[in-house]
């Protein structure tokens, strides 16, 4: 009797989709929780040098200086005190020359 009942359950396909759905949901949830709680992932997203920190610095720098951020110290650039010539819109610190230009030869 019990064997017959067991066979009846196993041979029946009822509930297969629901079981698969629940199992898949469980696996995906576990995977998601593992990834979100992973330290490296957290550092990548929200760390001091993470994705969004770099995006924020890039936005702030490009808003002020009108060019892509290639600076290593954005905070210093954003707190520029105008006491030197090193303003990235006007002066190329790497090349050691200004962004202004004029004619090389005297006008006739």
């Amino acid at each position, binding site marked *: 009797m019990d064997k017959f009942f067991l066979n009846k359950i196993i041979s029946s396909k009822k*509930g297969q989709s*629901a079981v698969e759905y629940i199992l898949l949901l469980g696996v995906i949830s576990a995977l998601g929780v593992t990834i979100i709680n992973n330290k490296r992932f957290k550092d990548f*997203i*929200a760390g001091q040098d993470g*994705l*969004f*920190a770099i*995006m*924020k610095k890039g*936005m*702030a720098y490009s*808003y*002020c200086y009108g060019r892509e951020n290639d600076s290593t110290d954005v905070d210093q650039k*954003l707190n520029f005190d*105008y*006491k*030197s*010539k090193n*303003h990235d819109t*006007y002066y190329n610190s790497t090349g050691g020359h200004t962004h202004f230009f004029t004619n090389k030869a005297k006008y006739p």
Partner: protein
Amino acid sequence: MKYNKGQSTIEFILTFTATVGFIFLFLKTALNYTNGYMVQHAVFMASRGYLVYDKQIKGDYGDADAEKHAKKIFEKYLPAPLINGFDGTLKANDPENMSFNKAFIGVYVDFEQVFSLGFIGGKDMVKFRAESFLGREPTRYEGYEQTCAAIITALDGAGSACDIHVTLDDNGG
């Protein structure tokens, strides 16, 4: 589990939520950029006022009053309720303090805004700085001072002030 009724509705709700979330995300980012453009425009208009303001009083270059004038223009173009949470104050680099770096004479404002993707990227504010360095035109009093100095120099120091009647000729140089 037996019935399929409501499956489409649930799927619609889930995808609709995700779609609307993305739309709002882009809207928020667009608003942030718009706020930035508005601040830059207000700073530019304020710097134009700072450039030409002339107190027209002998003995006073009027830089401090020019800064106040620029602030009024700034507040006119960017009234307080226009940008939610705007905390910037217009500051000026006046010619007296910028004797080394004349290129930076003008006005600027520092302000902070919430990051568009704050719900993912954290709640730290993002610092922005909007600058407009148009300089400062010489006032009538400065023109008077310089003309007097030119007269005194031309006359080899004869007379210690502009109390001599002379005819000035502009050679266009």
